[in-house]
């Protein structure tokens, strides 16, 4: 365990209990004035905190792996079309009215993500090439986006329409333990796949040809990446909707503290992603607005200017964090 991982882990261990106390109702741990404090903590805030950790860890880890795989600091887990496909599955659940049961919405989203993973594997899996893979992902993303718009425009009721639009913004309100049981195990499995992809991603530092000369099997690496990104991002979207920018920002924040090998970036990015989403969700709860700020909106509000600053910094010094090639 590196010092960076230990630091991030310590920060998480501090942040999680604090996050449980914060919200519309503040809970004083020593003199609980709220009569149902125990219920709020165990049934509302603890599962929500665990969900933020799982979603943030998944997005951070997936972002680090994607940037390593595409050899590009501007890559984001959304590029593979997994998130839009998962969202499409969820939209379908709303559209048909099947979302009323607690398990169907995440299940449909997971089916959407699984469909995108299978399609990616079918289209690009045979060659193992990066360009075809990325194009296939973008095609899936745009197709899923178009189908989602179609579903929204043909929405059967105004209620379903507002449900869909609100859900797509990404939020963690009213989530409970069963979402944790869906998201956390899948995210952990996905992170394990991404970590297994680490040595292959390191070999790719030298380019595709040199990586193959080092014994890399491009198809195996691609399969690990589809599994890893699909499981982390798909399960995150299934329980929280689309949460943007975490996968893009977090690897950048972490990279300067590592030796810049993609394999060394995945775990700290997962930890930092968990911390970022936890803190962002707490701020959403605490901000005195009429209705709670949506997590997806909040992160994108912070993320967009960050992305712009990053672009400007990359332009000023081409070797800072970006490629040398």
């Amino acid at each position, binding site marked *: 365990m590196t010092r960076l991982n230990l630091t991030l882990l310590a920060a998480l261990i501090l942040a999680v209990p604090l996050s449980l106390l914060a919200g519309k109702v503040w809970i004083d741990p020593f003199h609980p004035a709220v009569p149902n404090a125990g219920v709020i903590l165990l049934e509302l805030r603890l599962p929500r905190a665990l969900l933020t950790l799982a979603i943030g860890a998944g997005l951070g880890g997936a972002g680090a792996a994607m940037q*390593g795989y595409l050899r590009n600091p501007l890559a984001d887990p959304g590029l593979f079309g997994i998130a839009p496909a998962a969202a499409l599955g969820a939209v379908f659940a709303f559209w048909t009215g099947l979302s009323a049961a607690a398990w169907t919405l995440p299940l449909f989203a997971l089916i959407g993500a699984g469909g995108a993973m299978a399609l990616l594997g079918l289209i690009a899996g045979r060659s193992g090439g990066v360009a075809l893979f990325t194009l296939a992902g973008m095609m899936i993303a745009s197709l899923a986006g178009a189908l989602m718009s179609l579903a929204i425009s043909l929405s059967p009721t105004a209620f379903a329409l507002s449900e869909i639009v609100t859900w797509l913004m990404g939020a963690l309100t009213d989530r409970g333990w069963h979402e944790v049981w869906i998201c956390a195990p899948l995210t952990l499995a996905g992170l394990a796949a991404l970590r297994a992809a680490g040595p292959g991603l390191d070999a790719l530092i030298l380019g595709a040809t*040199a990586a193959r*000369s080092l*014994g890399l*099997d491009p198809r195996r690496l691609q399969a690990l990446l589809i599994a890893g990104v699909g499981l982390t991002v798909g399960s995150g979207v299934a329980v929280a909707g689309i949460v943007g920018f975490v996968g893009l920002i977090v690897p950048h924040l972490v990279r300067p503290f590592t030796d*810049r090998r993609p394999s060394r970036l995945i775990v700290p990015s997962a930890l930092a992603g968990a911390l970022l989403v936890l803190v962002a969700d707490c701020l959403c709860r605490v901000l005195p607005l009429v209705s709670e700020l949506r997590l997806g909106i909040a992160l994108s509000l912070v993320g967009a200017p960050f992305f712009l600053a990053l672009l400007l910094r990359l332009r000023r010094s081409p070797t800072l964090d*970006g490629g040398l090639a």
Partner: protein
Amino acid sequence: MLSAQNLTLPSRLHDVSLTLGPGEVTAILGPNGAGKSTLLACLAGLLVPTQGTVALSGTPLVQFPPRTRARRIGYLPQSPEVAWDVHVETLVRLGRLPWQGAPLHRPHTSPAEDDAATAEALAAMDLEAFRHRPLSRLSGGERARALAARVLAGRPQWLLADEPLANLDLAHAAALVARLKAQAHEGRGVVLVLHDLATAMNHAARVIVLANGAVAADGPPETALTAELIENIWGVPARWLGEPGARALALG
């Protein structure tokens, strides 16, 4: 022994056969588009010919698991692309990847052995002073040495390099050639795709000249790389000046 039998790739290689021995520097020469890089990639096991086989010590290369092959044959591609601004030592250590265990695979090395091989490769390319420097702060020549050291860190029996001297100035090219020759003296097989005929003449033990995907000449440079051959293949009248081992090529 690294041998190729009747290698054919449509419109790139035609019936190329050769056997390379360890302990010497072999130069693959030829005009642009003659198939030099294709032949090197076939010898490295990165391209599978449509006909013919490449064999390492008698075993066809396609039968080697990729990592086993990678431990035997090191390959230095032409493009010096490096995706992240890693430190020199981190880059060189990437050469140890075929030895390190992938998940669910047993490693063929230990951390101490990785350290030793990395240090040895850094020393062989005279890079000890730069080991903690990021690649973005190296000159083109230093970076070429770092990339070559990456291949050496894998301690391969065979060292295949595609135009390792491209983009290097006179002094850096001479230094890299000297270091690659030293690797051959240690018993490795060194195969270089080169453009500079004088470098091949003076430093290679053997030259293989390709033209239109076929072998046009194969042998020790003094006998194979004649002025007539150069005029035939490259279409430039030329003559050799100087003594063996210190030749220069005069054109026209």
